[in-house]
């Protein structure tokens, strides 16, 4: 108890390590199969002060996971620890978290100042403390000039800054969570707000979790990106790791533009057999008993060569910086990314894969 009070009253002691243990959630009362679960067996270890992104398509469970961490939802199974202290049954106020939602949530009838002061008033701070805190945060978010305006009169990005400010104004927050906060912001302001967030993260050094379905937002904001798919975490890693070594075919598809080429292949004697050839790879393949085996290679790591896999060139699209070449072989379509200056052969051609980035997948998971 004493320790808890200490955390609340001293800034320097705030250390929020977040641990999720075997977290599962279902919105149904009875669960019969995997699709009844919004989250399945999620395990996460997040360090204090990190910037993390939860990335995945709509309906993958990322908002559910966020609401469980913030305490708005109680998980069906599993537990949540903040600094090794079980908070699974605590409500959002007791957990001391801040959350910013998809669209700006503001109190229409209050001024900007009162909006920012509201969470502090509810926590019983003195007027002097509130005033200095509010002014400090308003300064940081460039809201000082509008403090006395009615919040409902602001533009969408101004309103979203208020939502953000209501989270930042409290010095006791363990973690700040963002649920696709830039959805309603104009494209040119997205950049401004995103770099503002990045800057804030460096300045205040709090743990931040950013939920998005936009890979660019996730990769630019976070040090560590958690990719979710159908209620499961398929890979956690730095943006580079996710790009260079996708642990799951979904990560390959979802990250990168165009996504990874994933084609059916056979695994024999620890080797990838594709189109009647053995594909060299740097990873060692040990297990072979899968119902479905595939080979994955990113378009960036394919080159035109004199021998190799024979393909038909179907279409070349020039994006300016590089060319995306659609090719076809017996096993399916392969996209190749070539630099703008590359001469693209016409008709049929041969391509070779960079063996460092050629991976075998068994039942969608990487074989290694």
């Amino acid at each position, binding site marked *: 108890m004493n320790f808890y009070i200490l955390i609340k009253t001293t800034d320097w002691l705030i250390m929020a390590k977040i641990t999720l243990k075997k977290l599962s959630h279902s919105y149904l009362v009875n669960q019969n199969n995997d699709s009844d679960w919004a989250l399945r067996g999620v395990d996460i270890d997040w360090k204090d002060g990190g910037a993390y992104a939860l990335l995945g398509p709509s309906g993958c469970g990322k908002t559910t996971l966020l*609401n469980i961490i*913030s305490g*708005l939802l109680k998980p069906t199974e599993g537990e949540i620890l903040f600094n090794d202290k079980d908070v699974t049954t605590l*409500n*959002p*106020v007791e957990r001391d*978290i*801040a*959350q910013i*939602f*998809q*669209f700006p*949530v503001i*109190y*229409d*009838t*209050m001024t900007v100042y009162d909006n920012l002061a*509201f*969470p502090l008033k*509810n*926590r019983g701070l003195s007027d002097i403390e509130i005033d200095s805190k509010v002014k400090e945060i308003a300064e940081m978010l460039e809201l000082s000039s509008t403090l006395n305006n*009615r919040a*409902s*009169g602001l533009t969408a990005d101004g309103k979203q800054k208020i*939502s953000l400010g*209501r*989270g930042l104004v409290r010095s006791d927050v363990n973690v700040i969570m963002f649920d696709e906060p830039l959805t309603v912001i104009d494209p040119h302001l997205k950049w401004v707000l995103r770099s503002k967030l990045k800057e804030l993260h460096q300045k205040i050094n709090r743990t931040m979790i950013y939920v998005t379905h936009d890979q660019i937002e996730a990769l630019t904001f976070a040090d560590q990106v958690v990719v979710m798919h159908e209620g499961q975490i398929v890979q956690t890693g730095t943006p580079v790791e996710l790009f260079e070594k996708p642990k799951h075919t979904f990560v390959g598809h979802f990250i990168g533009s165009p996504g990874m080429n994933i084609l059916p292949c056979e695994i024999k004697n620890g080797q990838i057999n594709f189109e009647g050839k053995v594909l060299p790879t740097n990873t060692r393949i040990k297990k072979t008993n899968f119902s479905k085996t595939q080979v994955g290679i990113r378009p960036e790591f394919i080159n035109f060569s004199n021998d190799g896999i024979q393909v038909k060139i179907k279409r070349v699209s020039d994006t300016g910086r590089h060319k995306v070449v659609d090719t076809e072989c017996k096993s399916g379509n392969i996209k190749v990314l070539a630099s703008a200056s590359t001469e693209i052969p016409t008709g049929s051609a041969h391509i070779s894969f960079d063996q460092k980035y050629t991976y075998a997948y068994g039942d969608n998971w990487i074989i290694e």
Partner: protein
Amino acid sequence: MNKTFNQKAWYFVIPVFVLVAFNAAVPLMTVVNYSFQETFGSNVFAWEGTRWFKEILHSERFHASLGRQAIFTFIILLIQLPLGIFIALTMPKKGWGVPVCLILMSMPLLIPWNVVGAMWNIFALPDIGFLGNSLNSIGFDYNFTQQSGDAWFTTILMDVWHWTSLVVLLSYAGLNSIQPAYYQAAEIDGASRWDIFRYIELPKMKKVLTLAILLRFMDSFMIYTEPFVLTGGGPGNATNFLSLDLVKMALGQFDLGPAAAMSLIYFLIVLLICWIFYSLMMKNEART
């Protein structure tokens, strides 16, 4: 640019003009016509100028029924709005309770007005009515046909029963359109239940509540059928509201001139109050 000038499209507007003329302009102008003249039937008219208007504006009878009307409307708004909001707040948001509540709430609104009056008349009769009989049997001296206080009580109770649902349904629709994120943000900000109502629900319901107040004001200010069937304006003149009084003057006494003048004043009062109220409510809206 070559533009063809052809005004024939105006012909398409003629049906609208005819319709509006027959359902609004002609009847209204007939009333205006009557209000400046004296008639003894058989289409004989004599010009009276503004005499009827002056008479009505200075008549104690008009003042009394206007006063009764204002008090009645004020009381029912005072009861129905908070009660309606309160019921809407306690109604379930999902599950089987939603249709049950919605149907229960809609029922009073679906009953024809004169049936409501007749129902409550029988319901409240002191000797055989369930309400009247029960009140008397537990010791209240209740008789709405003879005691003006009881007549008021019954009329207001009837109107609350009949029309609170409208406020409930409008508020419920307003409440349901609030995004869950507002409640979640409030929870995170540590807001109390009262704060949530004061800073989220009430501001978000502002538009539907404006509508509810306007509708309830207009309907209650023009109430006729239900009190006509329930009390007929009595006992004495106790529940003689404006429209009841107007009908008595026009059809009971056949004072068509004064009745027409009173109709116009009545109409202007309703219009003026609605306009003032609406402009006040929308003033802030325009600014934001």
